[in-house]
């Protein structure tokens, strides 16, 4: 990582509100030009961390370095970062152009240069013809793009985005996603993007930090987060998964030997921190397949099914009573009758032993 320039380094940041701790010593590094997402349920501390980077919240401990310089003691107006707010926070009494040039003028730009730069960013977000409108005369999607233009205009070292798509309707949100991603590539500015929407995170990010209860659970590229979750929380929060109770007999490096319910033994990749003893195995529903009773890795009984169009969800029960979900693609095999005894096969390399 040494050869990659770090845009932001979060170093053991702690944030307390009275007796409540919102961030328990969070650390992560965001690379230059990276689309970095903070993902987690509400109350996990992702927005608090973003507000600490912007300067709206004072950290209780730790450092935040912007291009190597600790900015934690600086007030927000002295930090070279800009924010796209969840509710956009556009200045209602100013035109779109005045909104966009506001930051430039405060940075000491001349009126004419600021206006030229303002029109340039408005072109980037395709709002050139709305320069003289008031924010109140624009649609939600247009306001969102004004907020983006306003934050991009001063060429911040890092752009912070606080759930910027949550106020848009679904169709618009999907269109804006790819637009946002291409603007990020075009400008080369590191984006720190806060969301609770895993699909948003998986489709847009270079890397994702999954947060829960003020801790970072896992940091990695989307594929790694989805396919190689390290903790129960990540496996459960991202997508759908089956958590199977297993007994770990041996861990050597990144591989564990374990015993499945029903007694079958198997070797599988283990998350760092996995230990011998009782553990949890995560298997995605689409990576389980049906076979005849007595074969496969697990013995299950068919309970019910849910038809979802592109695929069908089969609800199963193991001998010890644990529930299991299998996803069967449309047109691949028949749905077993309720009560039928079946075998389940885990696709090679698809199971993962979690850390807790």
């Amino acid at each position, binding site marked *: 990582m040494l050869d990659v320039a770090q845009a932001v380094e979060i170093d053991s940041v702690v944030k307390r509100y009275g007796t409540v701790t919102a961030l328990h010593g969070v650390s992560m590094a965001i690379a230059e030009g990276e689309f970095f997402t903070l993902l987690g349920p509400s109350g996990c501390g992702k927005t608090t961390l973003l507000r600490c980077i*912007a*300067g709206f919240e004072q950290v209780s401990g730790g450092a935040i370095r912007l291009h190597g310089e600790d900015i934690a003691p600086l007030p927000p107006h002295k930090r070279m970062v800009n*924010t796209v707010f969840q509710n956009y926070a556009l200045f209602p009494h100013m035109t779109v152009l005045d909104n966009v040039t506001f930051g430039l003028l405060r940075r000491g730009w001349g009126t004419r240069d600021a206006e030229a730069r303002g029109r340039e960013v408005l072109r980037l977000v395709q709002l050139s013809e709305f320069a003289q409108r008031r924010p109140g005369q624009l649609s939600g999607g247009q306001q969102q793009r004004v907020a983006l233009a306003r934050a991009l205009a001063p060429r911040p070292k890092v752009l912070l985005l606080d759930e910027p798509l949550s106020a848009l309707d679904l169709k618009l949100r999907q269109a804006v996603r790819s637009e946002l991603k291409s603007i990020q590539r075009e400008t080369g500015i590191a984006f720190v993007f806060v969301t609770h929407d895993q699909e948003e995170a998986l489709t847009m990010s270079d890397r994702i930090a999954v947060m829960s209860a003020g801790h970072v659970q896992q940091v990695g590229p989307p594929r790694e987060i989805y396919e190689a979750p390290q903790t129960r929380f990540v496996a459960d929060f991202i997508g759908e998964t089956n958590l199977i109770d297993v007994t770990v007999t041996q861990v050597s490096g990144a591989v564990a030997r374990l015993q499945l319910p029903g007694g079958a033994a198997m070797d599988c990749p283990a998350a760092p921190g996995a230990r011998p003893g009782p553990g949890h195995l995560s298997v995605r529903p689409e990576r389980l397949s049906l076979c005849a009773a007595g074969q496969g890795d697990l013995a299950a009984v068919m309970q019910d099914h849910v038809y979802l169009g592109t695929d069908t969800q089969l609800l199963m029960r193991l001998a010890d009573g644990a529930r299991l979900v299998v996803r069967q693609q449309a047109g691949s095999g028949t749905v077993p009758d309720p009560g039928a005894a079946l075998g389940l096969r885990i696709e090679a390399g698809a199971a993962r032993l979690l850390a807790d």
Partner: protein
Amino acid sequence: MAGAAPQGASAGSDIYRGNGPRLLLPVWLWVGIFLVAPVLIMAVYSVLTKEFRGGVIWDFTLAAYDQFFLDRGLFGDEPPRIEWTYIGIFWRSIWQAGLATVLCLLIGFPTAWFIATRPARVRSVWLFLITIPYWVNLLIRTVSMKFLIRDTGPLNEFLLWAGIIDTPLALVNTNFAVQLGLFYSYLPFMVLPIYAAVERYDFSLSEAAADLYADSWTTLRLIILPVVKPGIVAGCILVFVPSLGAFLAPELLGGAKTFMIGSLIEEQFKGAAGNWPFGAAASMILLSIVMAVLLLHARAQTKGDRT
């Protein structure tokens, strides 16, 4: 009736639209009887001839306006010069009301800001405290104010006792006393509309401004003040207009030197020395000034919205 309800509801808007003018009747009556009629009566009285024991004689004349603006000498036979007495009183009143408005704004804005930024439950307590004095009659409060600041009142007693002064301050019958009275009487009219505007203010706008490199002073000047301006303007109008016509504070706390429009008009309708047409004319002139201020404000407002 219950069975017919859905049909009635679907046609409801048409029914009410047809009834519109009739439903507005109470409003028109109220405005007509209590607003239009009194102004018309005043306008008519201002162009009638005065009767000696008060009241009017139905002879059309512009004598009242003439008396207000022109000086024709003691016996009315000299060439007319501009009469400065009443214009002076008006000017002093406008100045006093303007000063009271500025004072109320300087104290009222921080007060309103303070209240609006408290937690929701504490806010109503603060608002209640602001309005408590208004449960007491204005006359009684103004007299109490006089008692507080007179030569042997608690304020002077305290300053003497503390050794800050060695002779009592002569506060009663001064501009200061009138200002104090006006300020005290009308401060809540400044606080409440500004409070309403600040309470609606979206504080993420201040965060956005700080995020875009604006320090607190710039944020106040370029974002907060323009956004809450309607509340400030409303507060200023609500303080300026009644201050301009006030007569309790000038009458009780001021002296001959602080004579204001309100007292001038009041005198014209009191007892045998009164002059109803002159009082009506002065009222019409006062009304014109107030209307001019409001129209200018409305003009500025629509202009600001259009750009």
